[in-house]
């Protein structure tokens, strides 16, 4: 069964008016890996992962996840299958407490496939929320409104929400943007832990983070994949050097 890849896109394209943001991309992921996508601004990275997570509909092409075609699935149905996206711009629910923020995610994971009137197990919900908050070390701020958290902690809260959804594929869109050095170190440790149970797809500009985390790197440029390989291979690649790293 090795033939069935975890995630696979075939000739995936997205056009905005006259502009082709993603142009016939064949991309695939192995279960359990940490993959980074790098590339200059406007290369189509966010557009690609947006199509994978269902925020954007592709203009052409297909997406398969665990052997099933998900090209036309709406975002909520993809979350149900385990594809979870974290926003580039922090978008926690600012007026709600940390607990409520994570509870929204946790109850979704707990009620998948159940009828809406099905009672929820409050104890299970609370333990799932606390568990997710503990993993990002925010459990002591459970009652704090998200807006009162410092920026770095808001990003962690965002991550806790994603964790509570029990992702199989976690898409992180520039997760370390705006974080301090110390926060980035902590964040990288977390991502490694998460990678024990999930596949991670990461868009990242910070090359230190990429080199630290990624098992494989995909380089995008002008809406297409320019190169793909291990960090060592990518660093050595002349074309990549020219297009991106070497400038």
């Amino acid at each position: 069964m090795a033939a069935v890849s975890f995630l696979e896109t075939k000739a995936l394209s997205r056009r905005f008016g006259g502009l082709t943001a993603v142009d016939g991309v064949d991309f695939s992921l192995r279960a359990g890996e940490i993959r980074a996508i790098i590339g200059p601004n406007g290369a189509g990275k966010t557009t690609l992962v947006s199509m994978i997570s269902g925020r954007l509909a592709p203009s052409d092409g297909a997406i398969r996840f665990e052997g099933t075609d998900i090209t036309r699935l709406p975002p909520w149905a993809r979350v149900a299958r385990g594809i979870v996206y974290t926003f580039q711009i922090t978008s926690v629910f600012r007026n709600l407490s940390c607990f409520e923020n994570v509870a929204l995610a946790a109850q979704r994971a707990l009620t998948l496939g159940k009828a809406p009137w099905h009672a929820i197990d409050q104890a299970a919900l609370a333990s799932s929320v606390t568990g997710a908050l503990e993993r990002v070390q925010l459990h002591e701020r459970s009652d704090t409104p998200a807006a009162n958290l410092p920026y770095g902690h808001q990003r962690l809260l965002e991550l806790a929400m994603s964790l509570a959804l029990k992702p199989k594929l976690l898409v992180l869109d520039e997760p370390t943007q705006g974080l301090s050095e110390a926060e980035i170190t902590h964040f990288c440790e977390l991502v490694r832990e998460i990678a024990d149970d999930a596949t991670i797809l990461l868009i990242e500009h910070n090359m230190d983070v990429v080199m630290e985390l990624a098992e494989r790197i995909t380089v995008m440029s002008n809406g297409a994949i320019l190169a793909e390989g291990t960090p060592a291979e990518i660093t050595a690649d002349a074309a990549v050097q020219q297009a991106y790293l070497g400038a």
Partner: protein
Amino acid sequence: MERNRSLALHGGALLILFLLQFVLPPYHYTNFTRIMVLAVYGIGYNILIGYTGLLSLGHAMFLASGMYAAGLAVHYIGVDPVSAFVLGSVAALAFATAVGLVALRTTGVSFMIVTMMFSQACYLLILYFNEVTRGDEGIAISEAARQIAGFSLTNPILRYNLALALFAGALILCYALIRSRVGRVLIAIRENEERVKMLGYHTFRYKLLALALSGLLSGAAGASYALMFGYVGATFAAIEYSIFALLWVLLGGAGTVLGPIIGALLMFYLVEWTSDVTESYRIVVGAALVLLTLFFPKGILGTLREKRLRWLP
């Protein structure tokens, strides 16, 4: 702890309303009956605007659908009041669901205008079928048709306590809803719908559910009003009644359980009181709307919650 405090507050409010019937003079007695019924409409409206963040300008159509379904059934077919109440509520529920399937494809200002247009079409339809509905003049439902198990709905004591029971039911429903997991999702939709979608929720279904419940409560209020006060008229379908609901909820505090009745109560007596001075309610309603948006966008309870009582649901 907070849970107990808020249970005590809402239970206390209901207890006060129950006890008031022993002290209120007859005139205010009827006013309070009316206000409790209309506050149910306000609670219905609040579920949509306050908790789900959808601003409708056409809720009068749901009030009127309950009112007409119940009123016409009693008047023309001689249905008994209890069945008519159920009929009116269910009709409004079905109508709200149907409207929602279309209108909820829009958001924001478009949603406001779409609901307003649907409601206006309903109002005009009521006028158009003048022969059945008697248009603006309306229909007075005879006392003989308004009997429950030998008791007349014109009896003020019965009426007050039925209104209180209805209000308590709506209050408990609203309270339970926002404390439930569905309520959690509705509030999150109000805050940021896009994010809720990416957490795996089919947000359209939740919004439809909110609109349906909102319509159900509005319709139950309309049906009760028709049965208790024996009158059905097109004014209740006019845009003004949509705006009243908006005003009560904004004044009391959108997204607070007790906001609608506080808003309805204050507006009722504010209009009453100023109508001694000026001829019409318009200036009061108008000034209230402008001042609320300018200086007091969270309303009374909303501001209280922000300043002091964070636990207020």
